Every structure is written in C-alpha cells, then in structure tokens.
C-alpha cells in the first residue's frame, strides 16, 4: 500500500481526516474535487480553514491518470457528481488504475459494474462474526472487555471524530501497538478499520439487542484479533444539544456505554462553549452514562450559529481558522482541565504520548 501513488475522489471537508491519515502514513497521493466546490487550486486544508498542508486540490480535467497506481473513491459522493464520476472511472480503467471503491450507495453501484474492484471489505469482520455466532449459540453472558478502550466522540457529530480516531490509531501503531478502530465511516476500511456491526443503529433491531450485539462484537475483536487497544469512533451526537436540536439525544453514546466502558475518553467540543463549569457538568454527565470523565477536551473549529440552525448546518458547518482556536486555548489556561486543539501533528503526538504514559 505504501509504495503506490493514489488519487482520491471526491475531495471535500468530509475527507479531511482521511487525507491526514494518508499523510501520517507517508502515502503518496493527490486529491480531485468537483470544480463547483470552489477548492480547485487551493491548499487541501482550505476546505476546513486549516493551516496549509502543502498540497493543492486538483480538478479532474488537469490530472494525468497515467501517473497514478490506484484511485480511491470515497463514500462521500452525491448525485451531482455522477457525470464526473463516470469520466473518472473511464480514465481509471484506461490507465489500469486499481479502484478502491468505498461508496456503497445503491444508485452508484451500477457505475462499478464489470469493474474489478480491490477487496475493500475487512476480512476480520467475518472472523468476528463467527465468534459472535458462537457466543449466541452457547448463550454466553454479557462480556467484560479486557483491552484498553478509547472513546472518541463529539458533542455534535463532525468530521473531527474520524480524524482524531484515525490519528490516534496511526500514532499508537507507530509506537508498536496493535490497534483496532471501529467506525461508521466506510472510508475507514482503507486503513483497516472495522465498521460497527450491521445491527447497531438499525431500526429493525431493538435497542437491547443492539447493545448485546455490540458487546459480543468487542468480545470477538478481543478473542479473535487480540489487539492491545480498541478505539471507538462514537457515532452521532453525545448529548442532547438544546430544545431546538435533539442531536440524537446522545442515545447511541449511552448504548455504546452500556456495551463497553472506556478507559480513555477524547471529547471533541465546540469552540463557542468554553467554561470550567460547563466542562465539569459534562464530566458529571459522562461519568454517569459512560463511567468515565473526559480525559481531553479537544476544541474543534466547526461553528454552528444556534440551536435552531444546527440541523441545517450539520451537513456542512462553517469552519473557523485553526489558529484562532489556539488563541482561545491560551485565553482559557486557567481552566483546570485538559483542553487541546489537535490539528497540528506535534499536538497529536504529544497527546498520544501522554495517553500511553497514563497506562504504562
């Protein structure tokens, strides 16, 4: 994987965590975005108002496909990209690029008919499934995990959940640890991540069964794969936002907390609510539902105006400048809790080191 030169399409804010992962693994790549997104010729970090990453976004027409070995098609396609996607697949075929397709939306699958795709399913999931079936067969009781479990979640679900989870995974693996990461993002499979079991968050399965299945899934990971650490990228919002926006009431966080308790908890928190009192109240809340206080409050740069606009802005919040967050942190040095802003690599590395020091 590391020697290949990849193309990535379509680049958008949702893929920021993905390309940061590629960079952390020193994988050669370029990104393509539809012209209408306003990214062409801009640094990749511009999409989230971040500090430059030193690589510009390209548009399909200017790319020489013959220079690449493979193309990654992200799950974050929309219907307005269909025509362009068609062209891109054509060019990829002409130039014998390996195609990694992570988009499993039915309406696009016909575009990939008769195309040889790289196996993008994680084989470990089959093995884990067998373990779950065995537990069910023997009617085994609720499992208590033994490995180190790290939760990464956001007050509101933003792109930072996947980004931070992946960075922690890569950082720990570089230190020699065996790490499994569970996420709902299909793109995570490129990094050998596992997806949440299909029953979890399904409206066809009762909440109780969902919790049991997830618990057995963790058991399966521990028994079959035996990692040192499991990272869980928590889906949806962690807590009800306000009377205008329910933010999923934090239901899935509660359910995950019932199936497994974390040993470390990174919370991605909004930049317009910073006070010791507020953070302490969050800690009290999470201590009850997860059995754990927050270890790191990570300030994110997504900005939502107010409660009755969050829902409409969820698809695409406004992004504040990364460097402005660092100012916010320095203004709040007096708060007796760990607040950070994990956009710079050195800050992530430092956080991971402290995380490991905590447990060794």
């Amino acid at each position: 994987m590391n020697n290949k030169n990849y193309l990535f399409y379509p680049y958008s804010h949702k893929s920021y965590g993905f390309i940061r992962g590629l960079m952390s693994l020193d994988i050669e790549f370029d990104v393509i975005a539809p012209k209408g997104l306003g990214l062409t010729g801009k640094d990749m970090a511009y999409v989230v108002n971040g500090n430059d990453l030193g690589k510009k976004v390209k548009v399909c027409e200017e790319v020489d496909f013959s220079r690449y070995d493979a193309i990654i098609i992200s799950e974050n396609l929309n219907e307005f990209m269909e025509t362009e996607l068609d062209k891109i697949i054509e060019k990829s075929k002409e130039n014998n690029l390996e195609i990694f397709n992570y988009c499993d939306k039915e309406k696009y699958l016909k575009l990939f008919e008769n195309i040889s795709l790289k196996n993008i399913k994680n084989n470990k999931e089959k093995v884990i499934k067998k373990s779950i079936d065995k537990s069910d067969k023997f009617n085994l009781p609720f499992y208590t995990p033994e490995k180190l479990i790290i939760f990464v979640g956001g007050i509101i679900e933003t792109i930072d959940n996947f980004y931070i989870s992946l960075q922690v995974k890569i950082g720990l693996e570089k230190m020699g640890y065996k790490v499994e990461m569970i996420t709902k993002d299909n793109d995570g499979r490129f990094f050998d991540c596992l997806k949440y079991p299909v029953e979890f968050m399904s409206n066809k399965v009762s909440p109780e069964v969902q919790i049991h299945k997830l618990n057995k899934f963790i058991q399966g990971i521990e028994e079959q794969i035996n990692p040192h650490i499991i990272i869980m990228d928590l889906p949806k919002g962690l807590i009800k936002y306000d009377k205008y926006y329910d933010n999923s009431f934090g239901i899935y966080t509660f359910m995950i907390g019932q199936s497994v308790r974390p040993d470390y908890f990174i919370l991605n928190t909004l930049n317009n609510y910073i006070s010791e009192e507020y953070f302490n109240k969050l800690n009290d809340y999470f201590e009850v539902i997860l059995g754990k206080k927050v270890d790191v409050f990570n300030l994110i740069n997504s900005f939502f105006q107010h409660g009755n606009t969050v829902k409409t802005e969820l698809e695409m919040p406004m992004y504040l400048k990364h460097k402005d967050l660092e100012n916010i942190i320095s203004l709040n040095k007096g708060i007796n809790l760990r607040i950070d802003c994990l956009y710079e690599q050195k800050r992530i590395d430092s956080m991971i080191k402290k995380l490991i020091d905590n447990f060794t």
Partner: protein
Amino acid sequence: MKPLIHLFRTKNNFYFYDVNRNENVKVDEEIYCYLDKFLKDEINKNNINKEIESKLDKLKEEGYLSNNRVKEIKHPATDLLDTYLSRKMKMITIQLTRNCNLRCEYCPYTENNGIERTHQDSSIDFETIKKALHILRDNSIDSYDISVNFYGGEPLLEFDLIKKTVDYCKKIFRGKLLRFSLTTNATLFTEEIMDFFEREKFNILISLDGPKHLNDKNRRFYDSDESVFDRVIDSIKIIEKNHQELFKNISLNMVIDPTTKLNDYLLLFKENRVLDKINIRTQILDDYTEDKKFKSLDEFNKQYSEMENTYRLHIFNDEELTDGKLIESMFFRKYQELLMDMNKSISLGNTGCPSGPCIPGIQRMLVDVNGFIYPCERISEINEFNIIGNVDKGIMLDKVKRILNVAKYNKDKCTDCFAFRECGFCVRSYQNAIDEIAVSSEVCENRRINFHNKLVDLQTIKEYKSNRKYKG
C-alpha cells in the same frame, strides 16, 4: 437607573416583562401599580411602601428587575464576519431587469417619495452575472447548497438571460446542490418557459392579490386594460394541467390591501379551486405612502380581528377552520411564535444587538443591473449606505459591518427600549431618511405596540391553558 422592564396586563392579571431575563413575571395589582409609579418617578421618600419594597428586593435577589442595559451595540456575528463572508455565502438574487410590464399601485418603483428608484428600461448583462456568480462560488466553500433567485422588475422579460445563467451555474457549481427560484407576476408565461422551469426544477413565487376585482384594482398592465388576474389564473391552470412537477413548486404571494374588505379575499379560493394545492403567503400592505392611501379601514380591521379569533378558537378549542387556507397563511407564523414561548435568559449582557439584522451577504444578497451588491431586494437601491459591494471588488467588510450594526445609529433609544430583543429592525427600517441614518419615531412606536400586544397574547394563552378543564 430604572429596571429595564415593561408593565402590561391581561384581562385578569398583572405582569412585568423583564428584558434582561426575557421573561414575563406575574405580580399582584399592588406591586404593578407601585412599579408603574416608580417608573414614572412618582415614588419618593414620602410614599415608599416598605412591604412592597421587600417583595421587590426578593425579586431582585432572584435576578429580576435588573437595570442592566447593553453598553455596546454589536451583533454577535461581527467578529466572525470575515469568515462568514469568505466561506458561508449560499444565495444570490439577481436583478435581471428594472423594467416591468405592470404598474402596480403599491409598487415602490411605480411611485415613491424619492426614497427608491423607479421602473427603468435597463437590464443586467451576462458578464456582470458571471462576476457575481464567481463571488458566490469563491466564498461558499462551507455551503452545501447554492440558491440562485431571479428578480426584477419582471424577470421573465429576460428569459434568455435566465437560461444562460442556469447553464452557467450548472458548470461552475458542479458538485453542489443547486436551487433556482423566481419571483414573477406570471403574465408572461409560455409553454417554452414552463417547460424550462419544470426541467430545471425551479421554485416559482407568483404574485396574485386576491380575487379578480381586488387583484386588478392594484395590479395593472402598463400598456393595456386587460385583466392581470385572468392572465395569471390561465397560466396557473395550464401549469396544473401540463406541468405537474412544476405545479408542485409554485407558491403564491398575496398582498392584502387594507382599504378593502378582508372577507372578499376568501372568494379567491372559493372561485378558483386550482389554488387549493398551492402554498400561499400573505402580507398586509404596509402604508408607506405620504398621502396614506393605504391606511387600513375600520371594517378591514374588524374583519381581521374576527378572522384571528376564528383561528384562535381553532388552535385552542379545536374548532373547525373553514376557509383555512387564507386564515392559516395570515396567522400561522404568529401563533407558532406564541406557542413556542420566549427563550429565558440570565441577562442581556454588556454587548448585544436588537434582533432583526440578518448577516448581509449570507442570508440574502442582491446584485442589481449595474453590478452593485445589496443585503436584499427589499431596501432602497438609491441609498448608497445600503451598498455592500460590487461585482468587481466583491463584498466590502466594513460596509457589511456598518449595516449589521446599524442600530448604533439609534443606540440611545434602542438600549433603553423594552422591545430590544424583539423589534425586528434591520437597515430597511432606516430607509425613510437618506440624509441621516435614523428610524422614524412612528415606526419605532409601532414596533413597541406590536411587541406589547405579543406579550399580552402570550400570557393570555398561558392563562387560558391553565384554566382549561377537560371536557371528556
């Protein structure tokens, strides 16, 4: 300094509205009258009532009756304005032409007292449109969808430009959700136009001011006596018959003339069943004219109150609502706000802004035929104060800041006003004056009266709910 409160009463009870807490507080009549005197400086050392003072002290301990007022007028988005304007634009209204084939009585461009432009035979050119769209594209990185709205005069006079613009938008916004909309008098529809709008999934807002005799009273062709109403209804019928998808995306905008009989508007829906499935929005004509030719009649006001009462009985007593279409369009929003109640607060704080201003360039943005950019299509295009940029230089941050914080020009009045949170003023309210930036006292007073009435309504509804008995 006196507490920032407003006294009001319902039929049976007494209240004060606490501006800092954004909350209505029920008090007994004695306290009410005492507070009234206090606010009028009629309490002195000779008539202090110690018992009432003690009750008021208790309220103060609970955080009420604060004399805090905002020290600095500053909209909360001010500090993030450059980020908003460089990343969060999402919509544009293009003034295709200043010409129109109608001359409506109340149209500000037909006749005004010099505070607005008039109809002109000038249209935008495509290069100007392109520049404006580039500004939108380059500054909408954090917007998932883009809205392009066509306006005039009458935009259908420039149908070819609309087609060209739509094609261009599809090229430069490739990858984003594009929405097109149009505000029209609907007198110039052809099959070709209907086909095009249906294909491109346009949302169409059609102006129609009631049944024929009322619509044609104020809406007239520039150069003929033909009925505008007939032309519009015919178009709507053709769309309903031949363009079902387009028909689903049509709404009506109805301006109600308060010098007529309100009940007559009901005839529109009784006589034209084709309108049953169309959404409508209504507004009562604001009388901005110098000679007050649209001042509301007593009979109109009476019928308005009756309709509102009917709606109220429907909401609270579950009584059936006949003629619901018109009545719902008139009162739904008001009652939605009343049912939602107010958001309680701890304090106004030191910095704030009267509610009202949207963020210019973000919630709305108008480009005129000359390439000047304005916050929206509702404000005067001849007042330079209102220009926030142009298609060559883009949006100018300082001009946007000035408009966003326009209440600074009225600071002394605003910060001392009980309607601070709810007045709804924006730069449009400052339009009557060109030489100075000021809000007229009459306009201010009307807002205060409206807010007072809202407070009374809010508590009346709550009283009704708490006294209601189950009849099952």
